[in-house]
């Protein structure tokens, strides 16, 4: 480019951009090992708690160390039209002129559970091309899907003091999913009492650690950054996460089978008759092969 961007950086960005397009079209991930000290962090949490803002703050620290950052953000596709509005870049605007904060928006394209089918291979591809810090931001809401743990080393649950009433509902998902819980917007009223509610809901030997964070005044960013760099990847739930990943793939295949009008009509006929189990078996027989 004509401005401050170096050709070598531009080449690195271009290479990843093209490789991710191939992965999205079903090509396998690029082989290769990850850079020394690399990390893959998944951020889950209800919409509006500030996941993109937290990523942006962590990206700033990574860039100060000279590390490259890749953000893979997923937004939902319409199940009716297949279209999608992908808006996660807007909140990463602080890095808009820095080529080495790479932001790629993925549409979920019918993949259930908050990721896109291409995300696991996209992560591997970014690591193989030498990107140091990978952040995955799934679709907001429906936060108890463990598939994210199949491709992230560390899962961060981001909440805000306004998430109060959700804590009990989230409890089972939190315990299985999060390695670290962050209470963002800690400058807001009620943050301390929310943290206490959270900690009492999470009591137990396997409970994840909780941290307070406020991006505008910088509270907790350095501590979170350090925690993410020293946290050991949790492997005990990896098999559960891999199984969740393959189940999501089966659902995506079933959705593709339903795009055949004959299959759709056959399944709907059984459903109208109240024969749900038979409808499911019919759909399973029609899963696309190859």
């Amino acid at each position: 480019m004509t401005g401050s961007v170096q050709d070598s950086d531009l080449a690195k960005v271009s290479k990843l951009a093209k490789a991710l397009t191939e992965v999205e079209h079903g090509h396998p991930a690029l082989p290769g090992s990850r850079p020394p000290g690399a990390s893959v962090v998944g951020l889950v949490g209800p919409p509006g708690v500030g996941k993109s803002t937290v990523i942006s703050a962590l990206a700033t620290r990574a860039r100060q160390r000279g590390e490259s950052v890749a953000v893979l953000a997923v937004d939902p596709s319409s199940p009716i039209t297949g279209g999608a509005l992908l808006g996660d870049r807007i909140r990463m605007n602080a890095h808009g002129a820095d080529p080495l904060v790479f932001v790629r928006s993925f549409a979920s394209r019918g993949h259930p559970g908050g990721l896109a089918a291409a995300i696991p291979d996209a992560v591997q591809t970014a690591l193989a091309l030498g990107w140091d810090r990978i952040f995955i931001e799934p679709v907001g809401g429906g936060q108890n899907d463990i598939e994210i743990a199949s491709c992230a080393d560390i899962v961060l649950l981001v909440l805000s003091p306004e998430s109060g009433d959700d804590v009990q509902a989230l409890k089972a998902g939190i315990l299985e999913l999060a390695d670290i819980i962050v209470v963002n917007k800690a400058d807001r009223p009620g943050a301390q009492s929310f943290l206490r509610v959270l900690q009492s809901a999470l009591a137990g030997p396997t409970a994840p650690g909780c941290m307070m964070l406020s991006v505008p005044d910088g509270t907790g960013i350095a501590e979170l950054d350090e925690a993410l760099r020293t946290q050991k990847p949790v492997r005990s739930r990896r098999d559960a996460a891999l199984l969740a990943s393959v189940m999501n793939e089966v659902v995506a295949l079933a959705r593709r089978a339903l795009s055949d009008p004959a299959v759709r009509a056959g399944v709907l006929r059984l459903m109208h008759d109240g024969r749900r189990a038979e409808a499911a078996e019919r759909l399973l027989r029609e899963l696309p092969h190859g």
Partner: protein
Amino acid sequence: MTRVLLAKPGLDGHDKGVKVLATMLRDAGCEVIYTGLHQTPERIALAALQEDVDVVGLSMLSGAHMELTADVLRELKSAGLGDRPVVIGGNIPRHDIAKLEALGVARVFPGGSSYDDIINWFSGLASHRPVS
């Protein structure tokens, strides 16, 4: 699946129109990436590169469309994206349309363009990625 980048270069702060367009294109089955207000030509090219989009749409209501368009086209070219069509919408006087096309703009939709014309144009775009 057509991937579209929509951007507002320069200083104009009105994004109602581009948001309506983003929703229209989503409902027509496109994957639409909106970058927000006040983007520099260099940032727009970087976003188009990272997102590897098939087409770049610029919305301009400020009157600075001649200068900004030339800058965006130059930045896209130097990012290696000279092959991606650029489409312009907004307050564009009729006498500037031919000038923008002469710069290399693929299509201009001035105020008053019809929904069908816009959607048909986007639907007719081919993916930049060759079928393998």
